[in-house]
Every structure is written in structure tokens, then in C-alpha cells.
């Protein structure tokens, strides 16, 4: 079949990890997500354990590992016990049993349970001793159960819960995942939502769809989500098309999340950056471009970025009002960061499970350290394989003048703005003319007001049509026989998006 060719050897090799590859580790069924770069030296810390990640190299994505402790300390081995490998709602056998019982069998309930802390006869020192002897986590759990005076009285459901709790502590599980836009976004939202501007994955998906991002696209983005948007766009480009991150001021916005995706060097080379003044500089050369054959072939290496240097006045002019001052940032940040009492609702799991206190609000300066921190220390390791890869894959190069000219000639095919710290009105005014007619655009914002004002302005200017502000609502369900309901906790707000289509202006008459 012809289609057999559509996924080549390279794609298939991506389903197995390699040394230096970026992975997402799902620790204990989604309790915690860790991005790591796999090297022989890398380790993962779970509780008090430092677990070497070497055994994960060369393993297929989707493999599940469980920690064991041996005389040489903790180590990961591939988990063979499939039955216990799933979280509550995926464990078929158990849930089925419970399901059949749910209407009548409530014989055990918690009326006889007293919370006295004396139910466990095993001492802490006993457990430490067992660990030192290399007793497996499962055996420790067994010991805990047989020494618990109340375990037998618990309902099946809470017995299960108890076991899971102990398993997480003494025999943590690590699931090997491929980092994709969705999983990266979800992990950041749980772990460090500020970094990605509180972008929810469903909102992100809506933005990509509304902006019609696909192969052959030339997507213009303003990305203040640390590279989340840029990476998600690049993922959709495949082997064709470009994404151009534009920015105001002298420094481009950090896009280091892009490095978590395992993009090929070719794809990385199509993730470009260009300052706004360069993109929107007068189109005098347009006529030349049409005649100049050089521009039809993007001979990028040869061309220098002359315009960049020739317009310093423009750069600094645009720079001053829009480059946010520290005070502006903290201003914008404060309402996004809800009252302390509300934080645990959004990122409860992380607050509980993530030992470190990584919740500080980032200032633009510490963006870089912040990433290595957030993506775990494993990213810092200076293994040779990693270094080599890093060199070959360097997203965010400056777009060459030839490329910029091409964009000017043809226009971008879509625009995505996720820039909470910039003034939307002037940004949109500058960016929309860079799009080709009929090109869709989307603007993400945490607040409704700026989008409403922007929408009204666009309606008046008639440079865009099909304008719409929407807000996605997503709710996850627990599905269990007789116990199906929405999860008690949810993310109640995913931001707003304003979408529209750029069209031919109405000529002044």
C-alpha cells in the first residue's frame, strides 16, 4: 500500500528512546511529570531516592518501569505485572467487580474506623531496616498491610486506595512518554502554569485549528508562553513550512520549551525569529523582489540580515513603550495568580507531590534558569550526546533577509498571538497587514477586556472579518461502573481567544 511509506524509518525510530532524547516521565500514574534528557548519568529524584535513568535508554515509549531497591541503591526495572499498572479508572478487572457490587454490596463502610494513628504496628525504623536489606517495595507494602489492624475492616475501595498510596511511596512507577504538545502543555499547566501563560491544552488546540496550521504554512507568532505555542505550531508543520517568532524590543522572547519536543534539526531550522520592525519595514523592495530571481530561491546562508542593522532607530523606538518594565509584569502577574486559597485548586497535585518550592513568579531575566529547573536537573547534564544534539538542533535562528522578503511578498498564512504583556491594539495593527488576504488569525488572552476592545477596533477598521471571541470549557470525567461523574476538581478557566480572518481593506473614498 502506498500509505505504508507515509511513516518512514525515522518516524519509527522515534518510538524508541535514544541517548540524549527528551522524554516525559509520568511518575505514579500522573502524580508528577518530569521532563528529562536521557543520559547514562541522568537521575530522577522521587522522595528520598535518586534513581538512575540509564535503563530507560533504547526502550520503547509507553514502557512502564518500577523502582526496586537493591544493595547498590534504587534502580528501575521494566514492570511486568500489567494488572497493577493502571490507575483506578483503567483497571478493568477490579472496577468490573466493584461495578457489579455497587448497588447492593455496601456491607463494609467506615463507621467502625477510628483515626487514632495506632492502627499501624510497623515502626518507621522497621521500614528503614527493610529498605537497607533490599526488600522490594511490594514486600514492604505487604508487611504494612499485614501489620495494619484496620486494613481488613476497610471497604474494598479504601483498601485499594491504601495500597496505591503505599505503592507510590515505596515502589514508585515511571511511565516513559513521548513529549508532545498536549502532554507538554498539560505538564506545564500542572507544574508551572505561569511559564506558559496559563495556556490550557484545549485552548492551545483551538488556537492551532483556528489558525489553520498545517504543512506548508508560514505562521507568524508572538509567543510569550516560553515556546509552548511555537513548539505546538512547529509540531504541526512537519517537513514543510516555517514558524516565525516576532518580538518587540531588542531581545527575542525565550522559547526554550521548544527543546523539549524531539524536533529534527531540519524542523528546528524552520523555527525562526525576526524582530517586528524588520518584518514590517517599508515594502520598498517589493518591486525588486518580484524581478529579482535571487529571492525566488531562498539562498539564506549567503544573505545577511542587513535590515536588522539598518533600522536601529526603529528598533529602539518600538522598544521603549512595549518592552514591559518589571512593574508592568508584576502587575499583570498578580491578577493571574489567584488568591493563595485558590492555587491548590488549579495545581493541587503538584503542590502536594512536588517537594521543591518552584512556584516563584519568573521575571524575564531568570527565564533560562527557570527552564532547566522546571525541566528537571537532568537537562543540565553535559553529556556528549546531548551536546551534539543541541548543536544540530538550534531553534529560533534569525530569519535571513531572503526569507523575510519572501514573507513580505507572499504574506504569512496565519498569525497567533499569545502575548499577555504587550499592548494588543498596536500589536494587531502592526501584524495583521503582514498576513496574506483570507489568512486566519487567533489571539489568546487571560482577560476578556483587551480582546473585546481589539475586536471592536477590528470591526470598525474592517481589515478583518468573522471575528469571534470564544472561551473553551473542558471537563474531565471519572468513568467507572456505577460511579461515573465529572472530576471534583477541574481547571475552571482556560483563557479567551479572539479569532478572525484578514481581508482586503476597504479603500478610502
Amino acid at each position, binding site marked *: 500500500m502506498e500509505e505504508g511509506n507515509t511513516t518512514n524509518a525515522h518516524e519509527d525510530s522515534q518510538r524508541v528512546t535514544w541517548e540524549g532524547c527528551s522524554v516525559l516521565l509520568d511518575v505514579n500514574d500522573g502524580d508528577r511529570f518530569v521532563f528529562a534528557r536521557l543520559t547514562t548519568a541522568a537521575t530522577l529524584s522521587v522522595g528520598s531516592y535518586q534513581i538512575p535513568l540509564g535503563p530507560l535508554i533504547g526502550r520503547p515509549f509507553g514502557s512502564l518501569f518500577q523502582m526496586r531497591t537493591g544493595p547498590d541503591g534504587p534502580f528501575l526495572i521494566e514492570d511486568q505485572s500489567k494488572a497493577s499498572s493502571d490507575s483506578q479508572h483503567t483497571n478493568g478487572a477490579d472496577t468490573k467487580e466493584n461495578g457489579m457490587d455497587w448497588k447492593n454490596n455496601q456491607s463494609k463502610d467506615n463507621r467502625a474506623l477510628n483515626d487514632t494513628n495506632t492502627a499501624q504496628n510497623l515502626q518507621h525504623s522497621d521500614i528503614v531496616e527493610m529498605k537497607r536489606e533490599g526488600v522490594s517495595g511490594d514486600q514492604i507494602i505487604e508487611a504494612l498491610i499485614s501489620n495494619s489492624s484496620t486494613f481488613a475492616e476497610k471497604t474494598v475501595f479504601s483498601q485499594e486506595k491504601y495500597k496505591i498510596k503505599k505503592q507510590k511511596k515505596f515502589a514508585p512507577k515511571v511511565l516513559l512518554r513521548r513529549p508532545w504538545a498536549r502532554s507538554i502543555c498539560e505538564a506545564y499547566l500542572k507544574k508551572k502554569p505561569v511559564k506558559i501563560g496559563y495556556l490550557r491544552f484545549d485552548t492551545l488546540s483551538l488556537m492551532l485549528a483556528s489558525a489553520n496550521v498545517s504543512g506548508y504554512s508560514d505562521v507568524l507568532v508572538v509567543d510569550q508562553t516560553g515556546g509552548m505555542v511555537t513548539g505546538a505550531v512547529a509540531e504541526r508543520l512537519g517537513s514543510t513550512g516555517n514558524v516565525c517568532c516576532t518580538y518587540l524590543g531588542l531581545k527575542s522572547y525565550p522559547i526554550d520549551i521548544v527543546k523539549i519536543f524531539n524536533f529534527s534539526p531540519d524542523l528546528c531550522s524552520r523555527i525562526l525569529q525576526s524582530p517586528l520592525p524588520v518584518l514590517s519595514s517599508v515594502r520598498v523592495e517589493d518591486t525588486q523582489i518580484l524581478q529579482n530571481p535571487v529571492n525566488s530561491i531562498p539562498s539564506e546562508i549567503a544573505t545577511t540580515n542587513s535590515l536588522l542593522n539598518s533600522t536601529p532607530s526603529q528598533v529602539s523606538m518600538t522598544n521603549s513603550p512595549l518592552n514591559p518594565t518589571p512593574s508592568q509584569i508584576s502587575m499583570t502577574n498578580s491578577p493571574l495568580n489567584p488568591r493563595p486559597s485558590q492555587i491548590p485548586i488549579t495545581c493541587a497535585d503538584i503542590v502536594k507531590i512536588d517537594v521543591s518550592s518552584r512556584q516563584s513568579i519568573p521575571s524575564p531575566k531568570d527565564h533560562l534558569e527557570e527552564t532547566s529547573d522546571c525541566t528537571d536537573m537532568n537537562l543540565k547534564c553535559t553529556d556528549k550526546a546531548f551536546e551534539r544534539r543541541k548543536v544540530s538542533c538550534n531553534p529560533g535562528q534569525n530569519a535571513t533577509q531572503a526569507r523575510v522578503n519572501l514573507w513580505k511578498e507572499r504574506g504569512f498564512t496565519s498569525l497567533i498571538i499569545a502575548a499577555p504583556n504587550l499592548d494588543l491594539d498596536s500589536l494587531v495593527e502592526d501584524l495583521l497587514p503582514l498576513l496574506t488576504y483570507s489568512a486566519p488569525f487567533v489571539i489568546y488572552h487571560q482577560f476578556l477586556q483587551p480582546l473585546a476592545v481589539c475586536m471592536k477596533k477590528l470591526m470598525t477598521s474592517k481589515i478583518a472579518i468573522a471575528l469571534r471571541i470564544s472561551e473553551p470549557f473542558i471537563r474531565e470525567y471519572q468513568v467507572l461502573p456505577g460511579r461515573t461523574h465529572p472530576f471534583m476538581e477541574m481547571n475552571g478557566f482556560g483563557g479567551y481567544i479572539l479569532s478572525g480572518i484578514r481581508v*482586503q481593506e476597504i479603500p478610502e473614498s
Partner: protein
Amino acid sequence: MQLIFCALFNDQSFDKSTRVTRKILTNPKHVNYQSNSLRSPAKEKLIMFGLAGGDPRLSFKRTIAYGDLAIVYEKHEIMRPIIVTPNAELHNRFGVFMHNDWVGKPFGSRVLSVKGVQGYVYILAATPEIWTLCLQHRTQILYLADISLVIMYLEIVPGCLVLESGTGTGSLTTSIARSVAPNGHVHTFDFHEQRAQSARADFDKNGISNLVTVGVRDIQGEGFPDEFQAKVDSIFLDLPQPWCVVPSAAKMLKQDGVMCSFSPCIEQVQCTCEALASQFTEIRTFEILLRHYEILRDTGATSEMESGNSRKRKHDPSSVNDSIATTTTVFARPCRFAKGHTGYLTFARLKFKSS
């Protein structure tokens, strides 16, 4: 091509533009064109988002040509697909438009009426999102919010091989095709011969037929064809009893592949999740909805009531006064009419089989 499309318009519920299309059908010149236009199926043309061939990058800026599928944007949320046809006229509340006038202009152009009301419309290039809004419903379809979540969660990117059933109206299929392009493929199956046929015609019109294959097959009864075994990146099901297809889906997926099932009823979800438990992991069920907002302008008119593209309106004193508009507050509120439910999306990843 054009024939089929006009016929579709023909069964549409009656409104002004429908009547117009009928008029075109009976226009002798038009009929003439149709007979000789049958030679050029949409295949070599670059119609939807320019994916079908040639240099697609240039195609996006490509100008409107005869035979193109164009979207006529009348006003907010009112868009109609139309095949650009020589000497054909379009009649709507904004006047009478000649297709001939559009040819050679870029997509996204504003075109003026030649007779009747002095108005204008925009001629847009089709995208999967616009298509979903203006296609001719033959079944229930998936809409933007569900579609975008499905594409992202199923990890559909260029080059992917995707299976889908049932095809229905092809609303989702069109978006999947866009996402697997240029070198991937989607095989979609429906047991309804007629629907499969109409879907094929739509894909052809949209210039994506090289990315989609429509098969007629009872997927619940027979499962997916064996030729796809262990080759497929992701699978989507919108069927009355998706749980019947779970074992087949597991067989088709590559290691670590993801599937999704869309069902309106929670009982269906329940059965599907039970069926998924033995071979799949990370089973998660979501409901996604969109809330739209309208903005209130100083005249008291909301964006929803936004008046259309009448050129006269520019001087109409009742419309927004620009100088005031820039200084007054803008109010926003959710639209009154909203979808309360579409369906539940259940995602699951194939469990790892150590070999």
C-alpha cells in the same frame, strides 16, 4: 463537479441564495459550461489550503480562478461555499454579483455588487474550520471544539496514517486530512454507500482527495481491514456502538498509538471504557464546549446583530460613530445561545506489549 455541488445547494433549506443557485442551474449559459467543465475535476487544482499539488506555498496567495471552491462571506456567520463559474451570477441580500468579476483577484478580496443593492461580499479561501461551518449536513457532525481537541490529543501531525469511522458528513475527516498533509493519509469508513459517495465528492471539491480514502464497510461488524494491522498512528470512532470496534482498533494501532471515541451518551462511554480497559491505558474522558462572547457597542447593537455589508451603511447615522466608539467602553457578555452538549470524547493509548 459543479453539477453535484449545485444539486447540494438545491436540497438546502430555502433561503435567498438557494433560490439564486437554482436560477443558475436553469441558466442556459451555465448549463453549457457545466457540460464542458466536467473534464476538469478539482484534483489538479489547489482549492482548500492549497495542498493538492504544485507549489502550495504560492497557492495560498493564488488568485481566484474558474472551478475553484470559494467561500462567499456575506456577514457574521453567514458563509456559503460556491464553485466559481463563468458568467454565473450570485444573488443575495447584498446585491447581484458576477463570478467573472472575481477571477484574477486574490482570495480575501472584497467584491462589489453590479446590480440591485449596492453591497459587497468577501470571497474567501476554504479552510477546514470554515468548511465545518458551511457544509451540507447529511449526519450529525463534529464541530470546532471537539475537532481541535481530537486532532491534538490523537497526536495527528504531517505524515500520520489515521483510521476513522463513520465518515458521516466528513466534517472531522476534512480537518484530519489537513493535519496529515502533505505525506500522510486518512482512511475513513462508513457503511452507508450514499454518504460515502457524497463525502468523496466533497473531498474532491476541497482538493483533499489525495489525502483521504473513503471505504464502504460495516466497521462495527467487520472491524478495520487487516491491511492496516500495526501500521496506524491514531484511530477515531464516531459510531453508535464503538465498544465493538475496540479489539480491532487495538490490532491496527502502532505501539503507543492513541484512539478516540466520540459518543453523545454516557452509557456508551461506560461500555467503551470497559472494553478499553484490557488493552489500553491512560483512558480519559472529556467534555468540551465553547462559549462565545458578543460585544456591545455604543449604539446598543451587539456584534451578533452586526449589520451586513451594505455600502450605504457607511453613511448611516445609526451605525457606529467612529470618533465616539474609540472613547467609549466596550462591554462583553456570553452569547445567549450556546450548545449545551455535543458528546463525550474518550481517549486511550494502546498498552505497551513487551515482545
